[in-house]
C-alpha cells in the first residue's frame, strides 16, 4: 500500500515532564536533518509538563509523512524512566531496541498511596523486549555533577546503533545546548556512548537489524 521506497525510522522518547525529553528530541532531529534526511518531530506541551507523562517522536528517512508512530512501529524507544518504558512499550517494534534509564520516579497515585510502583517492571521488560539496554543515566549524570544531563547520556547510547552512528552528533550538540553547558553535555554524550559500547555485545548478538 505505502509509498514505494519510503522507509521511515522512528524513535520515541518517553519520560516525565522536566526530564529533558524535548531537548533530546531536538538534538536527534537536528542531527538527522544535518545528515541530509527528511525529518519530522512531534511532541506535546502544556498540561503534561507538570510532572505528567511526556513523549516526543522523531521520524526520519528519505521522505516522512506522519509525525506520529503507530503501535509496533517504533525502531527505538528511549525511556527516561522505568514506568514510562512500560507505558509506551506497545509502540516498539517486535525487533526494536528499548533503552531504559534505570530510574524510578513515583507518580502522584503512588506518592499518595493509591497505587504501587511496579516492582518487577524491569524484569518484565527484559523478558519481553527483543533488544534492551539498561543504563543508570541518572547516577552517571549525578557523578559528573549535573543531574540534568541524563538526557545526553541516553542520546549517547542511542547514537551507537546502526544507521545513527554517522550522524554529526557532537556538532549538533554544540549548536543546540547553551554554550556554557556544551562541555558537560558532550561529556555526558560520550559516557552514554561508552556505556552502550560496553554492553553492546548483548545487543549485537541479536540477529535483527535496526
Amino acid at each position: 500500500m505505502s509509498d514505494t521506497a519510503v522507509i521511515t525510522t522512528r524513535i520515541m522518547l518517553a519520560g516525565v515532564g522536566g526530564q529533558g525529553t524535548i531537548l533530546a528530541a531536538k538534538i536527534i532531529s537536528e542531527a538527522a536533518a544535518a545528515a541530509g534526511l527528511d525529518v519530522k518531530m512531534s511532541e506535546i506541551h502544556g498540561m503534561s509538563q507538570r510532572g505528567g507523562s511526556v513523549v516526543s517522536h522523531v521520524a526520519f528517512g528519505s521522505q516522512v509523512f506522519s509525525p506520529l508512530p503507530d503501535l509496533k512501529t517504533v525502531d527505538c524507544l528511549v525511556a527516561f524512566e522505568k514506568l514510562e518504558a512500560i507505558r509506551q512499550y506497545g509502540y516498539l517494534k517486535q525487533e526494536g531496541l528499548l533503552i531504559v534509564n534505570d530510574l524510578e520516579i513515583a507518580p502522584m497515585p503512588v506518592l499518595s498511596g493509591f497505587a504501587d510502583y511496579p516492582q518487577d517492571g524491569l524484569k518484565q521488560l527484559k523478558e519481553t523486549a527483543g533488544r534492551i539496554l539498561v543504563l543508570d543515566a541518572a547516577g552517571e549524570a549525578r557523578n559528573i555533577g549535573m543531574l540534568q544531563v541524563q538526557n545526553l547520556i541516553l542520546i549517547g547510547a542511542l547514537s551507537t546503533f546502526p544507521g545513527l552512528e554517522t550522524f554529526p552528533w557532537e556538532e549538533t550538540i554544540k549548536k543546540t545546548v547553551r554554550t556554557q553547558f556544551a562541555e558537560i553535555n558532550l561529556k555526558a554524550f560520550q559516557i552514554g556512548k561508552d556505556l552502550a559500547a560496553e554492553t553492546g555485545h548483548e545487543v549485537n548478538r541479536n540477529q535483527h537489524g535496526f
Partner: protein
Amino acid sequence: MNDNQPILMTGNEAIARGVYEAGCHVSSAYPGTPSTEIQENIGTYPEIYAEWAPNEKVALEVAAGAAMGGARAFASMKHVGLNVAADPLFTVAYTGVTGALVINTSDEPGMHSSQNEQDNRRYAEHAKIPLLVPSDSQECLDYTKAAFIISEEFDTPVLLRTTTRVCHSKSLVHTGSRAQIPIAPYVKNIRKNLMIPSHARLKHPEVEERLRKLSVYAESTPLNRIIPSRNPEEASIGIITGGISYQYAREVFGDSVRYLVLGFMFPFPENLIQKFADSVDQLFIIEENEPFIENACKRLGIACLGKEVLPLCDELSPDRIRAAFLPEFKDSEADEAKIPSASSNRIIDKNIPQRPPALCPGCPHRGVFTALARYRKHVISTDIGCYTLGALPPLDAGDFLFCMGSSISSGMGFAKAFQAAAASEKSAESPQRKVIAVIGDSTFFHSGITGLINVLYSRTPMVILILDNRITAMTGHQHNPGTGKTLQGADAPEIDLYNLVSALGFAQEQLFQVNPHDLEAVRNSLKEAMDYSGPAVIITKAPCALLPEVKNSVKETFYQVDRDICITCKACIRTGCPAIRITGGKSLIDPDMCAACGVCMQVCKPGAITGPFTRAKEKAHV
C-alpha cells in the same frame, strides 16, 4: 535565514516566520495550547508590534483595528479562544479590512490540554470567511503568507486553522525574506466600516457575493492540489483530506491512491471536488473530528465514505485510518486495543499507575488548596490554570468548571441557587454553605474581572480567591498585565490586583492579601472571608516556583523529615507535593526535588519536618 538550507521548525515557528515574511505590522494574541509559541516567536521580530492581550476578544479587536487602519495584522489563539473572540469575528467579516487580517485558531483534537474538542473549521463557514488548513511546517509558512494576500485581495479576514500535531511537529522549512508592505491608506467610509443595522443590511449581500467570488478562487488556487497515484490508470480510490489527516492518510495509502488535498478548505471548491469524485471509483473523506468536507460532498450528492467508519472523537492516527478503511486490517486485528488513538496506547501491564500532572514542589497554589481542605463541604468553583490541578486528589478542592473566568460568574450563579434554596427552606438550622471561587491572575485579567464586578453589584455572599503567582504559568510563563513586563520582557506598567479590586469598591474588611506559603495567614483570611456577610476577596501573592529567579533561590535548600518523630499521619502527603513519599513506613523528602516552601512543615503536627537546610556546595555546582 534566507539561504536555501532548510531549517527544522515547528508549525508554530513557521507560522510566526510566515507572519514576519508577509510584512505583518501588528500581532496580538492570548496564550493557549497549542497556539502559544506562535506569538512567542513573533515577539522575536522587532519589525512587528507584538503583544499579549488580556484575552482573545481584545487580541482580535486590536488586530481588526490595526487592519482597519491599513496595517497587515494577525491574531492568534487556541480553539476555545475563538469563542471568546467570536463577537468581533462575525462583524469584521462584514466590514472587511483596509490592510489585511489573518486569524489563527489552533484546535486540539485529542484534547491534550483543553476542555473540549470543538472543530473551528465551522467558524469559517459560520462567519463566511475563507479557511486555510496547512498540513506541515512548510505549509504553515506558505499558507500564512497566502492568507495575507487573500485577505487583502478579497477584503476579508482569513481564518488559518491548525491542530496540535501541526503546531507542535517539526519539519524542514525553506524560509524567505520579509516583504516591505506599506500601510494602506485609510479612507473614512461609515457604510463599510461602521456596522449599524442600515449599513449591515447593505453589507450582508456583499458578504454573500464575496463568498461566491472566493469559491471561484478556491477552484484554481494552488493551495488545493491533486496528488496523482503512482499508476494513474489503476487509481480506483480517491481521498479528499487536509491538514494533518493528509499525512496520516499518506502514511497508510502511500502513492497507491489519488488525493485531493484541500489547503483552502472553505468556501469549498465544488467543481474541483465533483471532478475529482468523478475520476475515482470510490471516494474516502479523511478528516479529524467533524464531517466538514464530508457534509459538503454529501450536499453535492457525491457518494463518499467518511464518518460512517472514522471516529468523530479524538485524534486520528494511521492505525485508526487503517482500521476504518482496510478490511484486511480490521479482520486480522480483532483486538480493539489495536486501534488506539494516538493519545492512548497499549501497555504490557495495563494496571500500571497513571502519571497525572501535579502541582510542582514549591508551587504557591499548594498552600491555598491545603487550607481549602477544611472547606470541602462548601462548593469550590474553580477555573483554568495550573491551579485546576488542586481539584484532583489528594488536594481534592474543586466542584465544577466551565471555561476561563467562569469560576467567579458561575460561582455567583451557584450562590444564587443556594440563596434560593435557603429562602424556600426557611430553616435557620441548615448549615450555611457558601461558594468559594478560585481563579489565577491571568484568568482574572482575561475574564474574571467582569464576573467580580457582578458579584459586588449583586451583593452575592461568596469568597473569591485570586491566586496571583505573578505569571501565566499553565501555558508556559507568559507575561500578563499584572507582571510588569511585556511579551518581549521590557518593563511595562504593572496593574496591582489589590488596588484594582479595592478600586471596584471592596472595603478593607472584604479584601485580604496574603502569602500562600504562610498557611496560618491563608487560614485566618479564609475564616474571616467566610464569616463575612457579603462578597469577600483574598489575593494570594507569591511567584510560581518554576520562575528562574525562584528556582535559583531555592536550588540548594530543602526540608527534611526526622524519621524518628514521623508518626506516618500522612498530613504532608495530603499536600500533594511530588517531593514527598512514604518509604519504609515513614515520610521522606527528596532533597533534589524539594523547593523549600515549608508548607509540609506547617501541616506536620508532631514537628517531624524541619528546615530549610542548605546543601553542601560542592555537590551541586555547574
